């Protein structure tokens, strides 16, 4: 068309893919740089870090925070915040420890897990319903429900304790190889069998659990229309509504998913500690927010994701390990955690020094 050809249009030259990726995800990249830096420090302090038991315990220590962080991420992306993550973890932990029977019966374990997940999901759903239909600020809604869920946890488990079947704990916290029959790969395995034996002997069950959860729950959600909508409403709720996005459904689903993931965190914490308590989840509320930000998700919503959150959670949980091997007083742990968070967030903001139009720093 002649007119289109004469009507010249300013074109943006296509950015090289790698550069575009780096620009879009630089905050996540920073989270991984910090994770690898802390890993390097850990390895330099302890030459036996790469042994199956140490890797497994490191992964296990991170797992509750990873789930809590992923739960928080889903809500933060919508532009909201979930202050009840920690309370749902406590409630799940208390509920599990209160309902496990004094037996290794498989059916009992399945029923408890199902019950806990249903209750946690309901708790998230209630948060979402109040935020959407009560038209209240998420911060105040979840502050109130956090109190309620903590109260329920206290009712279920006034004193710490309870019985947790060791079958259940082992299933979530040991290495895969430890749960398989010893004769599976033969007495003295060679070739392929030997490879699989050493592999299963190294992989923590918790890591398998995490991968399953991400494959079955997070990725289908993120890649669905609903997942896209969750990002959309975090960008601009009014514009999303005008574009035909079901804002209410997207918001409710984000809070509900957060509840489910917090429930999984609580179940894992139960396996890890093999007991229950009404305040065991308390620290995870603020820590989950910290790892969301550290992982590059904007508290204003609309951008970011769980890749950074997972890296940030592992990085944060490496700090006690480093302090232990460096023979630093463990009471200094909060100090160092705070320092790492501050450093990471500053690194993310350092791009401001490269911005040449000062208005861009305020947009």
């Amino acid at each position, binding site marked *: 068309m002649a007119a289109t050809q*004469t009507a010249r249009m300013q074109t943006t030259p296509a950015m090289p893919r790698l550069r575009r990726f780096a620009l879009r995800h630089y905050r996540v990249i920073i989270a991984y740089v910090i994770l690898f830096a802390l890993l390097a420090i850990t390895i330099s302090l302890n030459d036996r870090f790469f042994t199956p038991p140490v890797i497994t315990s490191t992964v296990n220590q991170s797992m509750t925070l990873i789930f809590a962080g992923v739960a928080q991420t889903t809500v933060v992306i919508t532009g909201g915040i979930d202050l009840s993550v920690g309370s749902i973890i406590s409630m799940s932990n208390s509920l599990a420890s209160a309902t496990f029977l004094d037996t290794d019966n498989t059916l009992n374990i399945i029923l408890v897990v199902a019950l806990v997940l249903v209750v946690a999901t309901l708790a998230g759903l209630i948060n979402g319903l109040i935020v959407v239909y009560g038209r209240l600020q998420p911060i105040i809604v979840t502050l109130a429900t956090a109190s309620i869920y903590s109260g329920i946890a206290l009712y279920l488990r006034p004193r710490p304790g309870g019985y947790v079947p060791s079958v259940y704990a082992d299933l979530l916290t040991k290495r895969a190889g430890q749960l398989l029959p010893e004769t599976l790969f033969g007495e003295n395995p060679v070739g392929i069998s030997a490879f699989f034996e050493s592999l299963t002997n190294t992989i923590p069950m918790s890591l398998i659990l995490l991968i399953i959860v991400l494959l079955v729950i997070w990725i289908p959600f993120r890649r669905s229309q609903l997942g896209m909508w969750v990002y959309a409403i975090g960008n601009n709720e009014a514009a999303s509504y005008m574009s035909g996005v079901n804002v209410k459904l997207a918001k409710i689903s984000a809070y509900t998913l957060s509840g489910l993931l917090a429930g999984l965190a609580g179940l894992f914490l139960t396996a890890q500690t093999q007991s229950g308590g009404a305040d065991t989840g308390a620290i995870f509320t603020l820590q989950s927010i910290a790892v969301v930000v550290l992982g590059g998700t904007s508290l204003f919503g609309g951008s970011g994701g769980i890749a950074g959150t997972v890296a940030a959670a592992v990085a944060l949980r490496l700090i006690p390990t480093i302090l232990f091997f460096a023979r630093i007083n463990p009471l200094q742990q909060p100090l160092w955690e705070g320092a790492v968070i501050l450093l990471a967030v500053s690194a993310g903001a350092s791009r401001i020094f490269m911005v040449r139009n000062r208005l861009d720093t305020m947009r």
Partner: protein
Amino acid sequence: MADKPPILEALGVNKRFGNTIALKDATFVCQPGSIHALVGENGAGKSTLIKIVAGVVSADSGMIKIDGNVSTVTSPSQAAQQGILPVFQELSLLPELTIAENIFISNAPQNRLGIINRKRLKQSAEALFADLGLDQIDPTSLVKEIPLAQRQLVEIAKAVSHDPKVLILDEGTSALAVQDVKIVFEFIRRMRDQGRSVIFISHRMSEVEEIADMLTIFRDGEDVGSFPMGSISHEEMVQLMIGRKLEQVFPPKPAPGKPRTPILEVENLSWEPTLHSISLSVGKGEIVGLGGLDGQGQAELLFALFGVLRGVHGTVRIHGQEVNIKTPSAATNKSNRIALIPEDRKTEGLILPMSVGDNSIMAIIDRLINHFGLVNNQKERSTIQQMIEQMQVKVSSPRTPVRSLSGGNQQKVVIGKWLLTDAQIYLLHDPTRGIDVGTKQEIYQLIRNLADKETGILFFSTELSELVGLCDRVLVLYEGRIFRELTGSDINETNIVAAALGLQQTKQPVTPQEI
């Protein structure tokens, strides 16, 4: 052939917002296959009517018919299903999502498990862009990565993707420069030729005259007449819109006389890679226009002079004295006295939830302070009152939040706020964007009055008629350089457009015979 029913009818529609009557028994009828312009001043009810038709707000009374059937649309998505697709003044794109995601946000291609098919998503967007002649836009870019003009085109493409029967462009071209408007017009016409209808709302009368088949004029919430385009004159149109005769739109220019004393001089100013050795001067009492295609560095030049940008090289002199302005507060201080009236009144010009009064004294609050370091109430009140009167801001009380004012009145507050600073150099960044003719005329007069007070004015506009009508001199920028300087009778639309496109000046004027 039997007459087809109108594709869209709004019959006797009434709507009130609190005490304000937005629509009073308004009627609007749009035929299939026509481009129907809807014009009127800010607050005439055009946007409200569109919002009702599109299911965003509901009417208090009256009837909407689509294709002859009474409509029961109550949400934007229902309206979209009926083929009514609005593109609103405020951009509705989501900056952190890709262009393809934005376009198909409510109908992305999915597999049986509900997972979005990314490849098909991208292909659908590419096919749509190819169809619209926009193949230079990469659908995998994030919206925040592309310039404003492209975003507007994406916005329109998004509406078109829903296969509209009626496409509504509410100020859909206000952010676009001439060459992009052409692209939009190109596909508006193609849509009409396919038998669809387009409702076109714009304050740019030249665009309305160029594109529309039908014209409906609104004033104070009522429709005051519908006409086939060309059946009424420009003057009659404007008169119906503002309800009175519009005298001269632009104030008379002073006769070009002796050279003026420069108030602002710029030498070899560069901000790589956008601005390249720009030299210019603005004289006392002079209005110097900045023209050119969108994104040739006009906005950056204003920002550079105002100290917003880092890494600017070159010399700037005020009254012959070399100055080194590194921050906006240095630009506005007592010795430099520069004011920048920004483009986006909603984000850079005003603090929307704060009152008209607070907004207007924001830049001069330090001058209203008494011995105790507190704001002198009496001085504050009289200053605000003076601004409201001078600018003729239509507001019941200075305590009204600025958010509740119409666009034109908001812009008056922005300008008034900077007038109070008593600056000697004004940098204007498209000050009449999205404002109705009546208010525009007032603002033009104001700018001229300012110049007459021996100030220097650098005026960046995306509207050709303003550059021609208001400016004493026009500098046309092309790829970050001053490409041409136009003075006196050389300031006309043809010359500006030619220079904006980077065309060298023809030595010999083209005679009619040669064409």
